[in-house]
Structures are given as C-alpha cells and as structure tokens.
C-alpha cells in the first residue's frame, strides 16, 4: 500500500494504481472521456489533467501511477484552466445537435461542461463537417460529427469483443471512426460501444428516438436472458421499459453485457403480455375474473383431487423464493411428487462464448435444481409424458416461461399439457401455441408477473445467488408465484391491487391516441357543456 495525498485528502492505494483510478475509488471528481476502467489507457482526451507537486508540467491522471508520498491536486486554477481549454478543444467542432441527439441528458460533454466548463466559446470560424447518420451495422448508427475520437469503441472491439471492426480513419481534425471496407459492426456485444460512447456519436438503432433520456427512470436488476446473470439497469417510464444497460459487477459481468440481453425488456412490455386471465370453455376463449379469484377457485379442486392426479411443471425462469413456496405447497399441502422441470432445448448444453453468453437461456436453472434436491424430487420429463398419456395426471398446473422465445419446443409441449383434463397455465407471456392447439379440453390462462415486477433472487451458472428488487408494475392483475402457491394451498391472502403507472394506455395505442378515444367517449359531457 502506498500513501498519497489527493486534493488534501490522505489516501492509501494499492501499488500500480493510476491516479484517476485512485480518485475514482475515493469519489473525487475528475474530468475524463477516453479513460474507461474496463479498457486500456489511450490518454488522448487530455482532460484528466492533475498537478503533481514537484512536476512543473500537468500530467494526465490516467497514465500516471501513484508513487509513495505523491501530492496530487486537480482543483488548482492551473488545472481548471487546462480542463476548461481541454473541453473547449472538444467542443469547437462538436455540432450543436443536443436537441436531436439521443445522448442529451446523459452526455459526457454536457456533464463535464456543467461541472468544469461554463464558459463562452471563442470559436468564430465554421465547424468541421463530417458524415452524419452512418449505418455501422445492424444495431448501431454513427454520427461522425459528434464523435470526439476518444477511441473507447475502437478499444472495445479490439480488446473485449476481439472482433476488431472499428478503426479511426484519416488524420487530424478530419479523423473519423469507421469500419473497414465492406465490414459491418456486427457482433453480439456491439451495443456496449453505445454505452461507453461518452457522446452521442454511436446510437442504438433499437432505442434511437424512442425516448429522451430525462423521461426515463432507471432501476437495478438482474438480466434474465441467460444463466450468466449479468447485473443490469433497466430504463423505464409510464409507457413501459425502453432499454437495458449493464451495471458493473467484477464477479459476474464486469462492465459489459450482450446484445441479446438488451432485448429482454421486450417480453416484459405490455404488448407481449397476458393481461387478464382467460378460460377455454365450450369451444371459445373468454376473459374470466381477477387472476387471484380464479386461482383461488382452483385450490378447492386441487384439495379434493387425489395427490397422484395433480401435476406441476416448472421452468428455470422463476426466483428461488418462488420455487420454495410453490414446491412447499405441492409437496407438503397437496402431497404430490409429480413435479417436473420443463427444460428449454439448450438448457443442458454448457456452451459458453468465453465472455458472457451461455447456452442455457434460463436465469435460474441452478436454483430450480437446488429446490428439487431439497424437496427430494427426481422426476423425468418422460414420466410426465407417460402419466399424461395414461390420463393419470388430471389436474396439471404449468408455470410457463417468461422469455418464451427461447422455448422453441413450446408447441409440442403445449400439446402434451392439453392432454390433462384440467390445465391451469400460469404465464406472463401470451401463449399463441396454446390458443392454436387443436385438442384442448379445459384450459385456464392466468397472468403472471415478470422478473421486473417482483423481488427475489436468481442463482447463476456458477451458483452465485443474486438478489434483485421490483422495478415497476406493468400488468396490475398479474400474480407472482408466491401468491399462486399460497392461493393454491387454500390460504386466505389479501392481494393488493397495484395500479400500473400506465393505466390510461390501452393496448397498441399511443397515449395521445388513447386520450383521444377517451374524449370521444365523453362526448355527451362536452355536448351538454
């Protein structure tokens, strides 16, 4: 450990720590663009200037290692003047695109300007023109004018994704980021470049122009896209979720996440969700009552049935707490051992791409297996098939997957489930396969909550248990599996009605259109008035 003084505060840092890292770890403010803790040092933005006692020249904090007794200062007027000019050099050719730039509101240039700049530019000459709206690949759009050539994205493709698509072309003030001839920025981690871009030069096609950054709230959660369990931040507002970004966790995902994980918000949004419980009776689908009441009514049915006639199907997409309560209900209250693990086709393959992506697309397979072990369940899928075919299981409770897209075998399996004379299918997603199924007898669909709407924990591939908290409510009527377990066990519980934040948004309508519809309905009022 070395002792040093930064801005008058005495610190102890590990040997080999750069000044900027030391300042970061101790929550000291320092302007920077090109430095990123997950990438190599470029030292090109020249903003992280610090004054070191005994050195007449200002040094960059990112490439200077702390030595014993170093006295570092970045609040002196000399440093502040240097940072101000450093910012001005960044901004003289930066277009005033802020009103139409997606990065506005979370932009490094805006932040640093408010923090360290606050001056009037003296540049009177025309700005340098470069390419705008360049299609870099299937996920990303580039705006060269906005780029400050910090080279973070270039270093990302060189060092992290190791795909080497990006490079800086030309020299001087006409230098530009670009891809090599005929190549596209197309890899499974490409959107990380958008996250690390300190300005709005790289924008995500998926998120582009959907929302302004200041309309979004963010909340921490765990990605449920695969068994890696990346720590993520989801951005949402009353209209739903809009994007997912990685959150630093050195033990799990570092600074990064994959592009597939960024799509997980899509199956959480209202468009993809089952919102009301539905029932198939007399050859037609009907909306039934509240999900809680419908579930409750089944508890009597299950209580009166023989334990052998009851079956339960689970996937690896629920939380550890939910597994515990639902298994508790079925093994202890209903006394059945007919509990089965519905695996997605790739669950058991242990493919890993070396960085983050794993073949098992269920976030909590390990949690489910642990819960099965605890409750002594060792049934196989062929068991279920046999018991359904022989009509031994009459009442089947299926808790379906949230991320339905990875269950490619859903059609076959649903056709299997419908062999039960009484199927209770709990799902957060709309199950088109079930609706299309030919030989259905009595099916009830009950809406479930997704991982965004509940608190709990996932056990990832390495056995690391990661807890997460509820983010928001998207479907008010949906239940979580804890509630399902209690209701099926016949317990009296009080379900709290949680209004969604977007009550006024009817399906597939923009808020303004909904407002229009509501107005039309209230026509009489206005006519009278």
């Amino acid at each position: 450990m070395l002792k040093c003084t930064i801005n008058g505060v005495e610190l102890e840092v590990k040997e080999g720590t750069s000044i900027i890292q030391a300042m970061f770890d101790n929550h000291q403010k320092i302007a920077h663009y090109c430095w990123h803790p997950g990438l190599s040092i470029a030292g090109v933005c020249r903003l992280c200037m610090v004054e070191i006692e005994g050195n007449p020249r200002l040094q960059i904090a990112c490439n200077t290692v702390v030595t014993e007794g170093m006295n570092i200062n970045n609040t002196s007027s000399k440093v502040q003047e240097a940072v101000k000019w450093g910012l001005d050099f960044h901004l003289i050719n930066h277009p005033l695109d802020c009103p139409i730039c997606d990065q506005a509101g979370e932009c490094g240039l805006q932040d640093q300007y408010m923090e360290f700049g606050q001056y009037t530019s003296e540049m009177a000459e025309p700005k340098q023109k470069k390419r705008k709206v360049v299609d870099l690949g299937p996920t990303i759009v580039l705006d060269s004018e906005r780029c400050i050539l910090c080279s973070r994205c270039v270093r990302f493709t060189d060092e992290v994704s190791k795909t080497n698509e990006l490079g800086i072309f030309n020299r001087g003030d006409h230098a530009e980021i670009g891809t090599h001839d005929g190549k596209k920025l197309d890899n499974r981690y490409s959107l990380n470049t958008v996250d690390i871009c300190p300005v709005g030069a790289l924008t995500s096609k998926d998120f582009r122009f959907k929302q302004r950054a200041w309309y979004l709230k963010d909340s921490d959660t765990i990605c449920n896209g695969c068994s890696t369990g990346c720590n993520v931040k989801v951005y949402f507002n009353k209209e739903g979720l809009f994007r997912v970004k990685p959150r630093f966790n050195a033990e799990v995902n570092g600074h990064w996440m994959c592009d597939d994980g960024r799509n997980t918000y899509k199956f959480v949004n209202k468009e993809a969700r089952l919102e009301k419980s539905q029932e198939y009776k007399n050859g037609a689908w009907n909306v039934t009552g509240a999900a809680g009441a419908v579930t409750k009514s089944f508890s009597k049915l299950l209580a009166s049935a023989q334990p052998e006639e009851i079956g339960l199907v689970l996937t690896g997409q629920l939380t550890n707490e939910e597994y515990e309560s639902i298994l508790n209900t079925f093994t202890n209250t209903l006394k059945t051992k007919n509990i089965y693990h519905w695996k997605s086709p790739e669950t058991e393959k242990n493919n890993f791409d070396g960085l983050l992506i794993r073949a098992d697309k269920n976030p909590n397979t390990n949690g489910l297996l642990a819960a099965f072990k605890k409750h002594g369940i060792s049934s196989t899928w062929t068991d279920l098939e046999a018991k359904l075919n022989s009509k031994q299981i009459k009442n089947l409770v299926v808790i379906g997957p949230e991320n339905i897209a990875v269950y490619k075998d859903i059609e076959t399996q649903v056709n299997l489930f419908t062999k039960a004379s009484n199927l209770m299918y709990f799902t957060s997603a709309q199950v088109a396969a079930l609706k299309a199924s030919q030989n259905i007898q009595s099916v009830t669909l009950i809406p479930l909550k997704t991982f965004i709407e509940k608190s709990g924990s996932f056990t990832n591939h390495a056995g690391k248990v990661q807890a997460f908290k509820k983010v928001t409510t998207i479907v008010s009527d949906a239940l979580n599996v804890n509630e399902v377990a209690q209701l099926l066990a016949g317990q009296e519980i009080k379900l709290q009605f949680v209004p969604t934040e977007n009550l006024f948004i009817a399906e597939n309508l923009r808020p303004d259109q909904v407002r229009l519809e509501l107005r039309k309905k209230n026509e009489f009022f206005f006519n009278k008035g």
Partner: protein
Amino acid sequence: MSVNYKTVVQKPADKQWYLLGIATGLAITMKHLLKNLFNKKDMITLNYPEQKYDYSNRFKGNHILTVKKDGAIRCTACMLCATNCPADCITITASEHPSAEVEKYPISYEIDMLRCVFCGYCEEACPVDAIRLGPEWQTPGLNGAEFNYDIKHLAYRASLKGGVQSVVDDKERSKSGI
C-alpha cells in the same frame, strides 16, 4: 401598549336611508347609457360574435407549428417543449427521417388544448422556432376530441394559408454548425 378601538353600532334597518346612494348609482348608469347612445364610437362593449376585438400581435393564442421553406414541418422532435410544458399537454412521437440532414422529425405532434394554459413556455423552450403562440384566440369545438390539435391542424390549418415559415433555416443551421 394600549389598542384604541371603536365599537361600530349598526343602525336598525328602519333608521337607514339608501336613497342618496341609489340616486348616485342610477345617475352613473344613466350617464353611460346616454353617452353610449349618442357617442357609439367610444362604447366599450362589443357585439360579439358579429364584432371581434382586435388583439395585439403579441397575444398568445392558439399554437402554430412553423414550416421550412419547402413546407415540411420545422419541428425536430427534440421534446423540449413537452418537457417544459407545465400542463403536460404536448405529446410528440419522434421518428427517423429518411434524409440524414433532418435526421429526426415528429410523426405525431399533439396538443391537448383543454389542458393548455397558454403560458408560452413551449415557445421559449424551442431551439428552432418551430412552435409559436399565434394571435388566434377563438377555439370552438363540439366535443373533446376537437380540442386535441394534431400536426395537420397545428401547422397547416386553413387560417395559416399554407403554413408559417420558421426564421431558422436548415441550410443556415447546417452552415453555422448547429
């Protein structure tokens, strides 16, 4: 410190005389009646709707979305007006424009006039002179839906005669680097 106060005793009703007050009031009314009868020019009240009051050009009435030289909508869908709006009455849906020069533009821009308080903050927030509060002040409608002004009404309603041109030109913007 002592407080000086006086007890006011109201006279009983039969002891009060309002005659003088009534006469004064009547005299003022008659004075204006006669004045208006013989000097119609100075009359303050108008025969609305036959007669209409001429407000100053600075009057903040109905919103106008300005257009560019080619008649396309000036608005860049930056949503600063919607952000600044205290009544939360502006709803914009942005989209990618086929031309890289424009980049972002609104595919829907709606103002709920029943919520609008005509504060003019949207006008102040706009970086490209895309929204203005015009002098129009008559906003009749038969039902609620008619008060939800869409892009077509805001920019191209008949009274605007093909649209009001914005002072900010795209070419000039591009030249000066904004």
